[in-house]
């Protein structure tokens, strides 16, 4: 069966709309991914106010300034679990099969589902940037910096959403998707999201050195503390984009496995 590209676009738009609305209609589900990162940021600003003068910390006015990038990344990672859990719920409740039974383009089902959480990721990034503004936390790189971080929020949410979709497509269980949440938590903590890599030691330091999340966060951090630089923008955008390509490929493969099994 051949489909016209125009149809695919229309289907994609319709499904995106649905997934986006679904997120905003479930405040209890998405609320925590906005509140917890801000809570930890507030906690850190009081707990680690004296840590910023330790050797290894960049020159910053406050811990809040340092942790901005970590807060954004933390929120986006946790928020993106919601979208993939919704995909698993679609599978559990049979809505997914109904979509497949219709002549809907296969990829638009996946991308439509991810569109909602990606938009939400961008929105989260924007909310965190604005929420910390009254506390004197600004992005030195100016408008370009703000835009880059918001776009990074979009891409990161897409990348993680695709990865979670692999789990959703493989297991068809929303619970299994929620169950991967601790893994994201561990990955985040094993990076330089909260303290600079320079202050870590031993095996832990090595893991953080290998963790791509470290470099993603550090790119955003550099934009916010130091200002515009090509390296910082590259780290901010290219790393999540690379991960997104990889996880999308995995998700598409898992989708075709699921389709073949029907």
């Amino acid at each position, binding site marked *: 069966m051949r489909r016209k590209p125009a149809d695919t676009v229309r289907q994609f738009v319709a499904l995106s709309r649905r997934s986006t609305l679904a997120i905003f209609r479930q405040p209890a589900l998405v609320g925590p991914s906005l509140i917890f990162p801000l*809570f930890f940021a*507030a*906690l*850190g*600003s*009081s*707990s*680690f*106010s*004296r*840590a910023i003068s*330790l*050797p*290894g910390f960049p020159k910053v006015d406050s811990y809040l300034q340092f942790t901005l990038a970590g807060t954004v990344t933390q929120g986006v990672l946790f928020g993106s679990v919601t979208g993939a859990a919704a995909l698993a719920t679609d599978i559990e409740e049979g809505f997914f099969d109904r979509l497949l039974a219709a002549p809907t383009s296969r990829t638009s089902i996946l991308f439509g589902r991810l569109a909602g959480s990606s938009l939400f990721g961008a929105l989260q990034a924007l909310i965190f940037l604005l929420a910390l503004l009254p506390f004197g936390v600004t992005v030195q790189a100016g408008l370009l910096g703000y835009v880059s971080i918001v776009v990074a929020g979009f891409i990161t949410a897409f990348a993680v959403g695709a990865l979670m979709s692999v789990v959703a497509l493989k297991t068809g269980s929303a619970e299994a998707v929620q169950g991967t949440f*601790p893994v994201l938590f*561990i990955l985040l*903590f*094993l990076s330089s999201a*909260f*303290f600079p890599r320079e*202050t*870590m*030691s031993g095996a*832990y330091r090595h893991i953080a050195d290998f963790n791509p999340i470290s470099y993603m966060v550090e790119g955003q951090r550099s934009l916010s503390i130091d200002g515009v630089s090509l390296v910082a923008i590259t780290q901010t955008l290219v790393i999540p984009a690379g991960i997104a390509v990889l996880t999308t490929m995995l998700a598409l493969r898992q989708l075709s496995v699921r389709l073949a099994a029907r």
Partner: protein
Amino acid sequence: MSTGRSVGILAARSIRNIRRLPSAFFPALAMPIFNMVVFAGTFFAVTKIPGFPTDRSINWYMPLGIMMGAAFAGVGLGFTTIRDIETGFYDRLRMSPTSRMSLVIGPLMGTLTRVVMMTTVVIAIGIALGARFSGGVLGVLCLYIAALGLSTIGAGWGLGLAFIFKDMRGAAIMQLSIFLVMFLSSAQVPLNVMDGWLHTVARVNPATNILRLARVGLVNESNVDHLSFGAVWGGLLAILLMGGLSLGFALRQLRKLSN
């Protein structure tokens, strides 16, 4: 005498379920280990802040991991009780002529046994990762007492909420409240190192006292919070007071269950 037997058999049921429902016990064991490792690793340099009471980050975060685990193990009793209420099994317990006290104390004993197991495992791993008790056996004992005390407080709170809500809404409140109380304390850094709003809150949070008790055997010997009556009485008092209050709350809500 009959109360003692009831307590024993209800505790036995809870302990048996460690083996029969490992999927519930495993996270309760993994979470404290994970907390200990990632906090100690991420905030490795925190001990270099002037005035920090220990120079090993694992010494500071191992008790935190244990105490978080103990608190959540405590409210975990609320979870299992909600399940018993939902299946109707709790009606069976309530219909028996055994004392209401034993319906609370029995399962609590099971929870405390779990906490002792968890604490032992985390201490062993902590020591393997470099934690050192400056306070010797007495210091270890204080850590156990703090863990058992905190989980008792959590258990009373969890049970009371389970009796009020009777469904999983209660579980969400249990988790959130424990999470807030634990973090709005000296969980991450000691009082003398923090600034601003958190200092104001943590100073009056009883969890800070209990955490101090948990850490008396792990801070530097020269520190004021090292093993001494002055360092432990606040935590002991908090445990007695809060433990009494929360168990009273649980018992009162249990009696009100038939209203």
